[in-house]
């Protein structure tokens, strides 16, 4: 399985991974790292590097971060020099739940797929519910 490291601000990554674990049985090869205010960015990169080592089973690792431009993403981007590591931003719960189902993809392909998948799973339910409404009874003109 492809490995995943979630990196972001505050408790968000840890809580997000916990949420994924509460939904999906057998979530393995996933780690979460949260950046607390005042932390030295250099130590963050080192921690991400260790997490990448832990989740890498030879099939590659994706680092998913909370948002582009933030310190967690910048620290993650420093890992791009490593073979088989790819970074994606804008992590959400549907993405995490999809990871164990990804097969036969390189980390680059998988990250590409995941980002697209995460995007596709943003929705505005009221619009969907409107579209699902059954036709009103009686003849329509």
């Amino acid at each position: 399985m492809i490995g995943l490291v979630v990196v972001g601000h505050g408790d968000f990554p840890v809580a997000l991974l916990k949420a994924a674990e509460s939904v999906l049985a057998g979530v393995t090869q996933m780690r979460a790292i949260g950046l607390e205010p005042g932390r030295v960015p250099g130590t963050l990169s080192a921690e991400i590097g260790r997490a990448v080592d832990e989740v890498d089973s030879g099939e590659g690792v994706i680092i998913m971060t909370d948002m582009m431009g933030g310190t967690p993403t910048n620290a993650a981007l420093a890992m791009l020099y490593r073979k088989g590591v790819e970074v994606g931003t804008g992590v959400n719960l549907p993405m995490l739940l999809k990871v164990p189902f990804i097969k036969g993809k390189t980390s680059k392909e998988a990250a590409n797929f995941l980002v697209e998948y995460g995007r596709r799973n943003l929705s505005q339910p009221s619009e969907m519910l409107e579209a699902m409404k059954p036709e009103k009874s009686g003849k329509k003109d």
Partner: protein
Amino acid sequence: MPERNVTVTNELGVHARAAAAFAQLSSRFECEIFVSCRGMEVDGKSIMGVMMLTAPMGAELTIRTEGEDDHDAVEQLAALVENSFGE
């Protein structure tokens, strides 16, 4: 192409954990798996797809499989739903 109708028996309906259990079991099979509820059909191997059915307790699901191990798949998946997704 085997097909089975099953009734959702667990109180929370096909919520996130139930959908995940369904998709995880589906993914163990080679065949294609479709599940539908109230006229909407989704890929049984997709957690988000199965969750989109928003099937509550008492709803009827139709499980349809197609491929090499389709009989096994439909039986095991129907059993999962009938056993309230193991909850």
